[in-house]
């Protein structure tokens, strides 16, 4: 392939990507209105019927509301994915460990113990995007914890032109055979009946990381040993087209 043809292909690819994102945005945005309406109307019906609804009717209304809510959450996850390349594009200078301290602070409570070990690294980056990814990884660790006290260790080092952040927890981890699947959209490790989780957080986190030119993987020896995520994040802002 000659160079002109290559450049042309790249342009076409960028165009198709843009059209796809616009399509996804439009679809998920416009589907939201009728779902919200269903949700509202259900709420009003049960409100208006008052307390004397038969139990099975009450139960069915609740199930219907749950499903409508799940649908709403799924759509907003699709929306979030379609907006990765268009939102939070502000860049700013951040310093470690302060940046990690700030994010971790709101996850610290009686049931969680978060330690941070970081080389002093300062760099300019899509700080909102990096923050979103770290927030998701912490949320994920706490959500899947089966321990009374969840411990999370954040270790940040500089590896060539990347920040390498290890997020290790003492949870039950993921079985090796599902380790790649946890990044798929709408995959949940537990049945959707048992969890409010819709299985989109890690998908969005990986998509954001890829956008920034980084890499997000899980690294864990065996099930039951807690999970360890490895985030590689570029220390320089990459030119994206």
């Amino acid at each position, binding site marked *: 392939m000659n160079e002109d043809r290559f450049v042309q292909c790249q342009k076409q690819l960028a165009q198709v990507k843009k059209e796809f994102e616009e399509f996804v945005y439009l679809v998920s*945005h416009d589907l*939201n*209105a009728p779902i*919200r*309406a269903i949700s*509202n*109307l259900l709420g009003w019906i049960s409100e208006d019927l008052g307390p004397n609804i038969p139990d099975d009717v009450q139960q069915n209304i609740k199930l219907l509301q749950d499903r409508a809510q799940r649908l709403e959450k799924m759509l907003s996850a699709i929306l979030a994915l379609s907006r990765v390349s268009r*939102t939070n594009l502000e860049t700013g200078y951040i310093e470690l460990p302060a940046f990690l301290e700030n994010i971790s602070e709101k996850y610290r409570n009686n049931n969680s113990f978060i330690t941070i070990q970081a080389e002093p690294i300062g760099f300019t980056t899509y700080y909102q995007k990096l923050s979103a990814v770290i927030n998701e990884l912490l949320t994920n660790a706490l959500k899947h914890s089966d321990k009374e006290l969840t411990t999370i260790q954040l270790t940040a080092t500089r590896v060539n032109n990347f920040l390498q952040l290890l997020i290790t927890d003492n949870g039950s981890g993921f079985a090796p055979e599902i380790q790649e699947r946890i990044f798929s959209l709408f995959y949940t490790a537990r049945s959707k009946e048992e969890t409010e989780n819709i299985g989109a957080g890690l998908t969005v986190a990986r998509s954001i990381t890829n956008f920034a030119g980084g890499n997000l993987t899980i690294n864990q020896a065996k099930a039951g040993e807690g999970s360890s995520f490895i985030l590689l994040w570029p220390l320089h802002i990459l030119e994206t087209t």
Partner: protein
Amino acid sequence: MTEENLINILLVEDDEVDIMNVQRAFRKNNINNPLFIARNGLEALEMLQADKIPKPHVIILDINMPKMNGLEFLQEVRSDEKLKRISVFVMTTSNEDSDKINAYNLNVAGYILKPLSFEKFIQSMSTLNSYWKLCERPSM
């Protein structure tokens, strides 16, 4: 105008259920302000310019609507000598920065996302209500 007078509110919204949502929220929170309704920007503009309704102090405005969308309507309002001072709250599902920037450039009093921040909207409404009672304003 006397102190007891409640401010008039115009709701510009194309979705029937969203209209019911506002009406129910008003009832639930004992907000008794007169509420007028237009189904799109064009209808609202005609109502305002032909004085079909008492001039509202506040407009609650959806963005995605047929015929004339919220931002186009807002542009018309801001360039109309008689209407340009009205406080406008955008209430939309659009979380796009471009819509927010365009709206604030047209001097909106607030930008509210449906439906999560509805509580905030109700709070703003009652705040605005007391605010208007406190303030002197030009006779309309």
